[in-house]
């Protein structure tokens, strides 16, 4: 199959890294990148951190490429345009304006969109955070001097927004329906460490509590919680998770199930690959079908999918990795973690908020979590890579700590 025309839908991290890899592997044909945002690809992690605190100007988030300038990649940009459909038999992407973009190979990297709280669309002052424009809007709202900011949802985005807002000296309430922050990602024990971190920085933390009603006429004025408390508020940031951007693919023939379902090599259909937050695939290393919403995965999977598209199809078997910055703490996880895993601290102490913990399931180590311990996380990540047994992993940690 000749691949004269490759279309990439989604002009962000996974899409850009796929384009770079296509060029690095010698693909010389046309590459068209379709993105519904007006911006060239930019980096999202600073949007909940340095852009909110003002430490980084928004325009400094533009993504660079490793070899020279982004213009050297020779990409055709279709920015500010949405893909609205996919004609798989005829091999064309449909654009909002009615145009059909024919392709020989397609990379889908449309990411995910934050879920909103129902019934709040008409209210000013209720934000979600995914895009540069979202971050700029929240930053402006913070600069206007709100009395209190309420963050709904203590996942990574919510926890980071709470930390950044607190660092600006603004009063923050953090509302989480589960028993601790990050419970679904890190489990109860580590979530409790994060809850204390926020309390110690003066965040008003409400756990195990739901939002009953957000009230206001044009602007948000108060929030009623399921424990009966009422918070007066003029800025709400909602971080209750994201949904993969697959609406435009409905009826296309691709399998959609909480993301685009791919095979082990990132292939979704012949000549069609998917990568990043939107893609689900069986990770043979862990024998698990996963969709990973991490920065590093968007890069690695974008590159992997590009190679698969060029015919070099091998299983994509990463050890996922992410980080989160909150106050002066850096949380990193290499591998997997779930509330059902066993957790053991192997270095440092939770009270010092400088430690490493291992996650284990079925007799094997699956994850290494660190707080302010980057070198050790990376060193012990290899235990997850090699699939070390739980007891071997603990022994290695004890010997090399």
């Amino acid at each position, binding site marked *: 199959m000749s691949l004269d025309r490759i279309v990439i839908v989604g002009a962000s991290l996974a899409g850009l890294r796929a384009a770079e890899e296509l060029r690095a592997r010698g693909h010389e044909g046309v590459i068209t990148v379709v993105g519904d945002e007006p911006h060239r690809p930019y980096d999202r992690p600073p949007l909940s951190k340095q852009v909110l605190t003002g430490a980084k100007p928004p325009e400094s988030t533009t993504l660079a490429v*490793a070899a020279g300038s982004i213009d050297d990649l020779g990409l055709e940009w279709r920015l500010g345009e949405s893909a609205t459909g996919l004609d798989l038999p005829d091999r064309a992407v449909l654009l909002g304006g009615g145009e059909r973009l024919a392709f020989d190979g397609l990379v889908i990297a449309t990411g995910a969109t934050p879920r909103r709280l129902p019934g709040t669309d008409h209210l000013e002052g209720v934000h979600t955070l995914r895009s540069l424009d979202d971050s700029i809007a929240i930053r402006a709202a913070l600069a206007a001097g709100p009395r209190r900011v309420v963050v709904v949802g203590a996942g990574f985005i919510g926890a980071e927004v709470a930390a950044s807002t607190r660092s600006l000296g603004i009063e923050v309430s953090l509302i989480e329906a589960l028993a601790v922050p990050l419970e679904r990602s890190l489990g109860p024990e580590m979530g409790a460490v994060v809850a204390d971190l926020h309390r110690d920085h003066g965040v008003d933390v409400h756990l195990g509590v739901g939002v009953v009603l957000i009230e206001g006429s044009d602007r948000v004025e108060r929030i009623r919680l399921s424990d009966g408390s009422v918070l007066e508020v003029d800025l709400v940031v909602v971080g209750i998770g994201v949904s993969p951007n697959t609406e435009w693919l409905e009826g296309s023939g691709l399998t959609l199930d909480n993301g685009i379902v791919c095979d082990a090599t990132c292939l979704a259909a012949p000549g069609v690959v998917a990568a990043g937050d939107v893609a689900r695939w069986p990770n043979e290393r862990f024998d698990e079908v996963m969709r990973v919403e991490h920065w*590093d995965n968007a890069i*690695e999977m974008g590159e992997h999918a590009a190679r698969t598209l060029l015919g070099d199809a091998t299983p994509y078997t990463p050890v996922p990795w992410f980080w989160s910055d909150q106050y002066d703490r850096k949380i*990193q996880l290499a591998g997997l973690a779930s509330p059902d895993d066993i957790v053991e601290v192997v270095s440092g102490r939770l009270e010092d908020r400088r430690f490493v913990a291992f996650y284990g399931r079925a007799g094997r180590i699956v994850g290494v979590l660190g707080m302010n311990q*980057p070198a050790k996380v*990376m060193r012990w990540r290899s235990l997850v890579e090699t699939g070390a047994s739980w007891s071997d992993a603990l022994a290695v940690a004890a010997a090399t700590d």
Partner: protein
Amino acid sequence: MRIVVDYDLCESNALCMTAAPEVFEVRDDDFLYVLQDEPSEELRAKVEEAVRRCPKQAIVIEG
């Protein structure tokens, strides 16, 4: 090829070390050490991968 790391940006995530262990090492003190400032051409692909994988965009290749 010359490697320049902006140590004000670098947060010792050690992703670069995973991509190019011949060139980057984060030691137990949690600082990044560049083992070779001017690595040979055959390491270029690995170093470029390190540049891409650095979450802080702290590494620049000159030349």
